[in-house]
């Protein structure tokens, strides 16, 4: 009984990976080709389904859109949002390899430990905080939302900087070097695990919300004390 279970578990783990490794093309035809066209040629708007070509986007963009769950979307007009991907890790890897075979940049390999947090804060403030907010909590832009970066992995951040997903501009190496991206990733990692000395960060929105909460609490306490020590004359 036990060995049979073990073997079944082993097969369940390994088989999809073995099968997935060479099914990138099949997965692409099933899930992507209706909008992105055969061979990543794209489908021009006009019909029911349309989408941008994937030739030249490389593993970099494919990995980003699949890992974040941005793709697949039901319609091209839908704003992509972060969700768990319907594909397994192995399926994503084979899809990424297949789309990468159309040509384009590889997956970047950021090394946040090489970056500097203070430099990252400066670069993030200049280039990212306008939309994502300096605490990386996300925000609004005209025509869309900028996501919070709480769940973004270093690789996803480095990919997004170069790809410019949805409405985000992209940044060339001339604008932000790979070392700059390392610093930005390091800073975002700080915002993901902030050092909340006070114990209660209030979403790290800054001193004004903190002040408001403090005033509300202090005001309540003062009213309570006033009720306690004051009594109506009878």
């Amino acid at each position, binding site marked *: 009984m036990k060995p049979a279970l073990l073997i079944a578990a082993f097969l369940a783990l390994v088989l999809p990976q073995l099968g997935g490794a060479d099914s990138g093309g099949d997965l692409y035809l099933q899930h992507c080709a209706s909008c992105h066209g055969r061979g990543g040629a794209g489908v*021009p*708007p006009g019909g029911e389904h*349309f*989408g*941008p070509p994937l030739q030249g986007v490389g593993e970099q963009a494919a990995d980003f859109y699949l890992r974040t769950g941005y793709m697949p979307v039901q*319609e*091209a*007009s839908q704003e992509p949002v972060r969700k768990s991907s319907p594909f397994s890790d192995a399926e994503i890897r084979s899809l990424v390899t297949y789309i990468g075979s159309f040509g384009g940049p590889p997956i970047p390999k950021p090394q946040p430990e090489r970056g500097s947090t203070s430099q990252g804060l400066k670069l993030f403030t*200049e280039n990212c905080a*306008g*939309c994502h907010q300096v605490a990386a909590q996300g925000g*609004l*832009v*005209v*025509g*869309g939302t900028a996501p919070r970066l709480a769940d973004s992995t270093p690789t996803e951040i480095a990919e997004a900087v170069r*790809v*410019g*997903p*949805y*409405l*985000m*501009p*992209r*940044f*060339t190496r*001339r*604008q932000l070097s790979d070392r700059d991206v390392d610093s930005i990733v390091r800073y975002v990692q700080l915002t993901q695990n902030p050092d909340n000395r006070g114990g209660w960060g209030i979403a790290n929105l800054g001193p004004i919300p903190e002040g408001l909460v403090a005033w509300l609490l202090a005001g309540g306490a003062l009213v309570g004390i006033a009720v306690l020590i004051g009594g109506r004359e009878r």
Partner: protein
Amino acid sequence: MKRFGSWAIAGLVLLLGRGQRRRQLPPGKPVVEGGSPAPGSELVVVGLLLLAAALAVVFIVLFAGRANTQLLGLALGLCFAALAVASVLTAFRLLSSEVDDEPYPELHPFEAAEIEQIAVESGQHLTRRKLLVLAAGAAGTALAVALLAPLAALGPVFDTSRLRRDPWRKGMRLVDANGRVLRANDIELNTLHTAFPEGVDRENLAAPIVVVRVEPARLDLPADRSDWAPGGIVAYSKICTHAACAVALYRAPHFEPSRPRPALVCPCHYSTFDPATGGTVLFGPAGRPLPQLPLAVGRRGELIARGGFSGPVGPSWSGVRE
């Protein structure tokens, strides 16, 4: 201009004042018992009214000197406070009062006349009526002028040339924040670049620009700017025309057919400008398009300016350029 305004207002006040001649008291028995004169309080009230006038003048002087706004607020606030104290003193110390115990009646013509008589008689024992009226007039005029003074901030009426001054000259190269020369090849689609004129003070409001590349087929610039965008590269002032924030956001759709069009966005109040049509406002509180800078490509592929901006840089208040 400012002086002309104050003279006009002073004249208006005099004219209106002339129309109101003191009415003759109707004959008959007075309703209000004459109170005792209070020359001391009268002097205090006159002093307060003159103080209010002086504070209003101080406001105008501070405003003309572009002093900080807290001093402006202090002057205006104290002016109103002096007026308030003067009014309260007048009501309690200078005018005799008559309390009518009856419930609020419907006014018969007779009663209405009586109330008018009360109002007129209550000020009868004033010893310095003229001085008081003059002081009140001075306070009112000065306050009115003080409140109208900020109109001068709407901008110069006759000489607007200084609003159009900018450091960009024909042939000046564009450099990035690190001082490196920007080339046309550096400006890729969907990237936003900030640039400055080479060798010029960057604190100048009209120095920073944003540079983006628009697909040439999508360009729809005004007819007289047809040669301002070599290869679809356009440059605009980085200073938002609404409140002078830095236009730091670039809405760069990854796949255009199903997305909002590319736009330059100011992060302060989301004023949104269209780089393809000469910086026209697509959304938000900005009232004017972003001024465009005409560009050309130099012999070595570097971006150069062809002259100054298409319009005044910065938001629509004149003090911003100082």
